């Protein structure tokens, strides 16, 4: 079958390996590590009253700015990926184009930095 013969099988192996490693790290520590719970230990807050409603606080809008900046620079990766795959074929011309692209984004990074969007005050 062509599907399995293609080099995507490598990707499948990688995904499987990643899952196994991730679960193994979490799983082994819970099996091997000592676990002696008692009532005081598993109380939600050691020296206070138990919570009566959901404890998740409302976040400030500042988190959202960070989120948006993350999305914008994440999209940059989407543009870089096809360039990286074609690095050999595109050669110097492609490299120059990519450098212009990246330096324009570097400009926006510097802008956000100087404007204090990355500071946490």
């Amino acid at each position, binding site marked *: 079958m062509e599907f399995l013969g293609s080099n995507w099988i490598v990707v499948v192996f990688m995904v499987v390996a990643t899952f196994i490693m991730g679960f193994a790290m979490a799983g082994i520590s819970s099996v091997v590590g000592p676990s002696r719970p008692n009532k005081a230990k598993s109380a939600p807050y050691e020296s206070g009253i138990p919570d009566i409603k959901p404890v998740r606080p409302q976040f400030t809008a500042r988190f959202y700015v960070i989120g948006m900046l993350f999305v914008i620079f994440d999209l940059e990766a989407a543009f870089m990926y096809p360039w990286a795959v*074609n690095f050999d*074929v*595109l*050669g110097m*011309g*492609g490299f120059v184009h990519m450098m212009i692209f990246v330096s324009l984004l570097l*400009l926006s990074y*510097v*802008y956000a930095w*100087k*404007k204090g969007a990355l500071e946490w005050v």
Partner: protein
Amino acid sequence: MTVHLENPDWGMVLPQLIVLVAAIVVSLLDAFLPKERHFTVITGVTLAGFGAAIVAQLSQRGETGTTFHGLFQLDGLTVFLNLVILVAAVLTVLISASYVEYLDSKMGTGEFYTLLTFAVFGAMLTASAGDMVMLYVGIELTSIATYILTAFAKRRTTALEGAFKYFLLGLFASAILLYGMSWIYGSTGSTGLNEISASLTAALTGSEPNAGMILGMLLVIVGFSFKLAAVPFHFWTPDAYDGAPTPVTGYMSVIPKAAAAVAMIRILVQGLESLADDWTMVLAVLAFVTMLFGNIVAISQTDVKRMLAYSSIAHTGYMIAGIAAFRLIDGMAGERSISSVLYYLIAYTFMNIGAFAIVVWVQHRGDGTTLGDFAGLASRSPLAALAMTVFLVSLMGIPPTIGFYAKYYVIVALLESNLLWLAMTIVMASAISAYFYLRVVAVMYFQEKSEDTTGRPIVASPLLNLGIGVMVVGVLALGLFSSPIINLANDWTNLFSVAALAMGR
């Protein structure tokens, strides 16, 4: 497979390059310059950039060609539209300077001009695009910057509401536009406008257009109608225009609209000219509805800013009517239709930004934007009232102002294309518009202001005054001496020779 990388012709993209450099410099100054020197330096750099770009653009008159694999096209349409956009940009800087300076403690000069220069850059790229991908990217750059400028006064809830509506509906419009473009690509196999035209002409000789082409054409028209604020796709307009800071309203009623209009002309006239019989019909109906609706709803507005928003919807209708007058006569395009639209754009730039400039001027004197705030303006400041009268009379279309000549050229183009009914509608719509434009004039001259509400300090605004003066002169002079502008506008037909040259290559 080797990749062919073209060495671009940098001289051809010089005006755009100047604006791009200005945008980058402004954003860096915004980030690094000490706060106290922001206003003078950044306003100066912005104006210098636009001025240099105007000079560069004027020197390109009569030149034609394509570069960047056909993504960039230089022809008469490019030159004219870029000049309109740059002039509008300079006027925007003039009318927003005092506003930005006044609010400088709360919001930055730098951000404002950064966004403005990027928006102008996007609009200029749209005007010089020879490819649908480039058109889309240019329009998006302009639109996104405009969404943000709309929300600039973000402490006001109306600003946020307007920006939010504009943003969501604008995204819908972009998606519809892109969908239409993908249908056109699917049925012609190319994104380049000249290639689309050639492929369509070949496919349509002796056969009917297929459903994919028609669907693509309709979706593209719908997408641009959103951006142009044509009825029935205008719902965002009143709230966005009302919520945005007034100088921004002046800007967004011209530059994004000019970009959308030129993109529409590019796709329909340059790309889909073989389908002209179909799209002129659609546009004629669109223009009819837009003109009547905009003018009739404007009657009931008591807020001058909102009234001007509906008036700008009506003016979109006049421009679309000009595009609808496009005809192919023996395979050749008649030049009148698009020239009239181009002339209309420059007229609209002067009179509409002018009207908003007076609203800014009145707001600086501690008033709002309702009709009551304009009451007795003639006795308080006769010059401002006179200037407002000139702009309103021009918007109405009374000789000898530029607005009259603009409507006149559109009507002549319509009559030449046997669209008598649409020409009659323009006359009728102008008659309706007389009511609400003249009402403002009457309020300014014959009504006394009931109570004195001036609590805010008067803002010194030399640049605003300069801008208003320039626009008054423009409105009065450019109409009487319209032949150089019309000559420049007539150059748009050389886009077909560029197409022929590009396809022959």
